[in-house]
């Protein structure tokens, strides 16, 4: 039997207490407007929808706040990945190294590759870096032309300044050479 931390007990107690409050509140509001049950049902349904929306908004705000605290813009570096066509390359995985240290190794499912083909941009990495010179190396693996195993690297040396740094990895087709092209570029 594992002992639970005291925080867990407190938060659970708080959860039960608030749930009781919610139940009580709902009962009170239910009694107050119980004259027309159909109308009341519609009102409650609308309230629930509003509540859901507000919870989603709150969740989004908390997510943004967490990101701002953990990755302040002064040190933030984010790496995005996009696909342009991709006829000559079927993406399987991307390994990302920052200053020779592996920071991300991502395996792509069929569904994720399809989403990228439809124009999606993936945030592959989010982290912090000190100001100064840095090197980013990305290794792409997958199937190349004629369904042959393909592994290619691309790198970028960049200067991290005070503001956030955004880097894009883009895989596109080089029609003339009938080969994929891997581009790493900074967003200004």
């Amino acid at each position: 039997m594992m002992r639970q931390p005291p925080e867990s007990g407190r938060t659970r107690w708080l959860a039960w207490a608030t749930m009781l409050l919610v139940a009580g509140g709902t009962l009170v509001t239910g009694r107050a407007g119980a004259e027309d049950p159909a109308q009341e049902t519609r009102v409650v349904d609308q309230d629930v929808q509003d509540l859901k929306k507000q919870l989603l908004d709150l969740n989004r705000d908390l997510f943004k706040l967490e990101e701002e605290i953990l990755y302040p813009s002064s040190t933030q570096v984010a790496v995005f990945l996009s696909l342009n066509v991709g006829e000559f390359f079927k993406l399987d995985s991307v390994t990302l190294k920052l200053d020779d240290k592996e920071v991300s190794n991502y395996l792509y499912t069929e569904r994720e590759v399809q989403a990228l083909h439809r124009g999606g941009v993936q945030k592959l990495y989010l982290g912090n870096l000190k100001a100064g010179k840095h090197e980013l190396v990305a290794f792409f693996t997958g199937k190349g032309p004629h369904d042959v195993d393909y592994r290619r690297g691309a790198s970028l040396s960049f200067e991290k300044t005070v503001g956030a740094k955004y880097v894009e990895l883009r895989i596109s087709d080089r029609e003339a050479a009938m080969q994929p092209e891997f581009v790493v570029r900074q967003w200004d």
Partner: protein
Amino acid sequence: MALIQTLVLAAAVAAALAFSLAARASSATLSSGSPAPDFVLKSTDGRNLRLSEYRGDVVVLTFWASWCGSCPSALAELNAFAAGPEAGRPVVLGVSLDGDAGRASSIAQSLGLKFPTLVDAHQAIGRLYDVETLPLTLVVDRDGIVRGSWASAPAPKTEFNRVLEEIGQ
């Protein structure tokens, strides 16, 4: 009336936050009621499969290895459930903790496994799921919550079926 509604709203938000905190505090070990950690692994047929992409389906997850004596019988029993969601059956995913994908593949073939075999070559997912004994079988519901787990031996049929029935499978 407006005041009461505001109070109800505030209380509901607080409840949601408190439940979220409680869930985080108690997620140290993976047990029934815990969210199944998401992962992506390469299967022996070359596909990359992500657990969260099966959200909406009941998933039976089984960890095994070539050196585990009771694993073949557990895998053979699960083969019966491997028809897939289109037949209204749970999705079965096997996770081999063998370091060698070729070995995992040949064993899966020799056992005639109909479900995908994922290769956890570095045992990273095994550690994520606190796998201490093999085989380990988990039932994950449509919301990604673990509803049952059995270690060391094949899951007892009656208990296994009861869990599946409880989650409407």
